[in-house]
């Protein structure tokens, strides 16, 4: 089964600066989907950004971008110009194209300092 690892339980960033959250995964599949979800204190799971494995171009959504390294099985999230509202738990997730089992990492708690 696929596994997703987030090696940083907690991260901190100064407001307006840039932070990168790490994610690695283990799979034998060649095509799959990767996601970053944000979970604020409200507990709502909010999709931040997504990437298809066959696409070489890194996904970008406004201040959020990813560094997708397929060979290294790495999928890091970069948040630029960090804002106080970015403070949350961030989860990396993997989904196989074959079944509906989405595997999540353990999460990284991001603190944004004013």
């Amino acid at each position: 089964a696929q596994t997703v690892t987030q090696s940083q339980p907690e991260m901190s960033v100064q407001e307006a600066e840039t932070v990168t959250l790490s994610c690695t995964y283990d799979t034998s599949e060649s095509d799959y989907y990767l996601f970053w979800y944000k979970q604020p204190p409200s507990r709502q799971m909010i999709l931040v950004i997504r990437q298809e494995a066959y696409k070489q171009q890194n996904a970008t959504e406004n201040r959020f971008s990813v560094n997708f390294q397929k060979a290294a099985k790495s999928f890091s999230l970069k948040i630029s110009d960090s804002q106080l509202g970015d403070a949350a738990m961030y989860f990396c997730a993997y989904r196989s194209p074959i079944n509906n089992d989405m595997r999540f990492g353990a999460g990284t708690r991001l603190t944004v300092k004013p």
Partner: protein
Amino acid sequence: DAGITQSPRYKITETGRQVTLMCHQTWSHSYMFWYRQDLGHGLRLIYYSAAADITDKGEVPDGYVVSRSKTENFPLTLESATRSQTSVYFCASKPFLENLYNEQFFGPGTRLTVL
């Protein structure tokens, strides 16, 4: 209300009692999912359903029962609750026709405490 809702939002129960968590979605999505969220584990899939009357086990199904008689509802039952089932439970849904990124849409979660 449109979207995906869960009830109750908070529940306290005792060991051995039966508990049912409700999930309702108004999008007519074919797929529905139940996850539990625990510290250090992220979200783990309990059960999912591809359509009414079709369900399948996920990563951690033991101690749980699901049913899906209607497309819009996907209740999760703990037949005899245990303390290890204290967790936050999330329901999610996804349309049958795969969108480009297979996004799942999550409900607000139910915090369950088993004493």
